[in-house]
């Protein structure tokens, strides 16, 4: 290693918020031209640390050095002037403006100080997009018309429109498909070859193996390991550092035999034009069926159509042999279906309300006499349901917004448990849930199945589907290309099917 000082040194960074010490003396050093990965569970302090780095938070204590000189980052603009750019998870683009306008937002090329030189802006935006490997994005297009992946590119182009020395990327791959992730990695490679440093945050260990140089692990506001070699540190060691314990294997055991019995959920020829082809599916009590596929393969759409939240083009859904009124969530809920949607905060939770009210919202009439709610009975039932799932804290009076991701998901599950639902539709149940809590959630889901629930599971994480489900349907572009017991599949096989759609095994083993 060259003896030149690191590009960035943060030492002893401490930051407290009312009631929480978010960062407790964190050290981080980043060399020019390296990909430095930041790992940690939710709440470990990653977001706070990058906000300090972006100038959005002021540290209570600690020093920041930039190319060997001490600096203070008083504001995001100060950080930007030094050459630090941050690409947040929630992209901060203006949908009503064009790509070029977004790229240059805040520093438009101007004539006479205020007249925006549109042509120059477009040309430089086009050059940046080309450098990022996406010359097909038209700088004149509105950002609102772009896909999530394209927006990410625009966001990156904006970062590069400054003279940038260090880019912070907060879970950039979360919304991307594998080929888009490959492109992202290529861009990261180009940047580092130019001497730009990248601070990369991700939950996905395999990504860190692929592109990371060094890893810093945060836990409870401290850096428990700094500058580990990204490729050669064993996974077990990383997981142990993150969780403080050894997570050997996350998934619960499957019951030995597939439970007998008539299907509780029957889907016949269900389709939606432009979203997914006619689908047949049977779900028995006690069974967990997984839908594996890429983003955009129609997974969520299938769940929402079964649930009545979307109206099908053809086909029907029956529960215990009785067909449901199509396109009616209420009919589905009444028949015993429950959905834990993909976007918990946007689609499932009343963030201002208590856990109790979030849990009871689908069963209110049970505690009501003539519209009058018996709050004592409601509280008791909600508490029983949340206790059964060991939701923490064990106080259903707290607002649901204060819970961790895993416990918020438990609150959604408790809602359907209380309702007494028979078919649970789970859309990305562990999104935003940290590693330790995932294992617990998997155990809960399996236990609910063992108690007789039928579960339909959608996840973009193939290992999750394979590890949790009994039977897996592989989807490609809205079409089921393969059905098999989960134990007959492995990750490579599923990814092959997802990418190639090879209809190799036409015989669908009806599994014992």
């Amino acid at each position, binding site marked *: 290693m060259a003896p030149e000082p690191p590009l960035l040194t943060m030492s002893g960074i401490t930051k407290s918020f009312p009631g929480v010490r978010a960062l407790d003396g964190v050290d981080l050093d980043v060399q020019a031209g390296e990909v430095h990965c930041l790992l940690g569970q939710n709440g470990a302090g990653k977001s706070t640390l990058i906000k300090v780095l972006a100038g959005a938070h002021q540290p209570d204590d600690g020093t920041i050095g930039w190319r060997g000189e001490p600096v203070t980052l008083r504001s995001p603009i100060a950080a930007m002037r030094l050459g630090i750019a941050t690409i947040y998870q929630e992209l901060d683009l203006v949908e009503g403006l064009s790509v070029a306008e977004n790229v240059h937002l805040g520093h438009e090329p101007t004539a006479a100080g205020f007249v925006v030189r549109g042509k120059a802006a477009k040309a430089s935006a086009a050059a940046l997009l080309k450098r990022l490997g996406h010359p097909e994005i038209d700088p004149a297009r509105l950002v609102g018309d772009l896909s999530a992946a394209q927006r990410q590119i625009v966001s990156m182009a904006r970062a590069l429109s400054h003279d940038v020395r260090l880019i912070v990327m907060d879970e950039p791959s979360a919304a991307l498909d594998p080929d888009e992730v490959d492109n992202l990695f290529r861009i990261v490679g180009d940047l580092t070859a130019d001497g730009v440093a990248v601070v990369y945050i991700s939950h996905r260990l395999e990504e860190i193996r692929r592109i990371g140089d060094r890893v810093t692990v945060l836990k409870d506001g401290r850096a428990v390991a700094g500058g580990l070699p990204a490729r050669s540190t064993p996974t077990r060691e990383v997981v142990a550092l993150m969780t403080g314990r050894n997570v050997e294997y996350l998934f619960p055991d499957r019951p030995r035999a597939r439970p007998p019995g008539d299907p509780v959920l029957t889907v016949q020829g269900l389709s939606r034009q432009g979203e997914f082809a006619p689908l047949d599916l049977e779900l028995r009590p006690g069974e967990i069926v997984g839908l594996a596929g890429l983003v955009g393969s129609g997974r969520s759409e299938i769940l929402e159509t079964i649930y009545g939240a979307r109206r099908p083009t053809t086909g029907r859904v029956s529960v215990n042999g009785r067909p449901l009124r199509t396109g009616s*969530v*209420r009919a589905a809920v009444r028949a015993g279906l429950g959905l834990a949607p993909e976007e918990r905060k946007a689609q499932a939770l009343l*963030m201002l309300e208590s856990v109790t009210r979030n849990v009871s919202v689908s069963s209110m009439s049970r505690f009501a006499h003539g519209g009058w709610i018996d709050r004592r009975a409601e509280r008791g039932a909600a508490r029983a349901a949340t206790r059964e799932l060991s939701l923490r804290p064990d106080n259903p009076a707290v607002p649901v917004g204060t819970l961790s991701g895993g416990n918020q998901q438990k609150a959604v599950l408790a809602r359907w448990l209380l309702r007494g639902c028979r078919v649970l539709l789970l859309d990305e149940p562990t999104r935003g849930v940290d590693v330790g809590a995932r294992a617990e959630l998997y155990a809960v889901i399996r236990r609910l199945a063992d108690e007789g629930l039928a579960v339909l599971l959608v996840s973009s994480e193939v290992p999750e589907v394979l590890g949790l489900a009994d039977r897996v349907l592989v989807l490609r572009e809205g079409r089921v290309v393969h059905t098999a017991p989960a134990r007959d599949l492995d990750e490579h096989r599923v990814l092959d099917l997802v990418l190639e759609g090879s209809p190799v095994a036409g015989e669908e083993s009806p599994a014992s």
Partner: protein
Amino acid sequence: MTQHVSPPRDGTGTVPSTGELPAWRTVVARADVRTLSLLGVLAALIVIGGVTRPDEFLDTRNLQLVLTQASVIGVVTVGMTFVITSGGIDLSVGAIVALSSVWATTVATQEYGFAGILLTAVLVGLGCGLVNGLLVAYGGMVPFIATLAMLASARGLALQITDGRTQIVSVDNILKLGERDSYVLGVPPLVLVFAVVTVIGWLVLNRTTFGRRTVAVGGNAEAARLAGIDVRRQRLYLYLLSGLCCGIAAFLLIILSGSGQNTNGNLYELDAIAAAIIGGTLLSGGRGTITGSVLGVLIFTTITDIFALNNLQSDVQQIAKGAIIVAAVLVQRRTASTT
């Protein structure tokens, strides 16, 4: 102190009790900072009124007048609070009050006496609410636009009915309700109606499935839909409720003024929205407080009274109201960010 029936405190906006604290502590814990600060403002206003106009302000007749005036807009505000809590808005309340009041006081209606007037006022309110509700819930219109259209049409219809003339009420048992003889222990009947509407509104919002659904729809309509709530039907009911409150308010106004006019209820929509907002109901929906709304109404009405007694012009009143709205929202944002 004023002699209105003090409404129960409501628990929205605070963490619900765990049920393990003694009763009095729960009451204190639930009387959130916002309600207490509104009570403080009201108390301060009463002190100001008492100091600046000691003889006139604290006079029983004046207090009765303040409460009577608060009653009409107060009933409207209770309905508005429900609509805003659900994430909607009803700009047509003032116009509906006008239309109800003139329709209920036409010569033809007056022939049916007390019952005819009351029934007409309520039915016209409900009818307008039904149209609003259908447009918003099933027509997919933005509440702002749908109720703005209703505002224009209802006012127009009210003008058409009256031709700009004041319709004097000649039904005796209506007029009698406005007289001092009808006061119950010194409380005007109008104020009693307001108190009853307030208590019912509080109970419905805080203790019934209807109230829960209202909050759920306002807090997150998509989540409410996916939890199995019929969001559209709930929205329809809410605009019906607002219309009903307007009909009741129109009836109170008929008693109060002994007439029906097409200019009745002018700018009630703004007063009702302002009272609900300073009371602590979120304009974005998902949190509503009847107690806060009623305190907001009382604060505004008291200010108007104090200014009038001190011979300050209405332009000064308007400026003061504006300042209070801004101050209240700023204080709320501060308390929200510290909790």
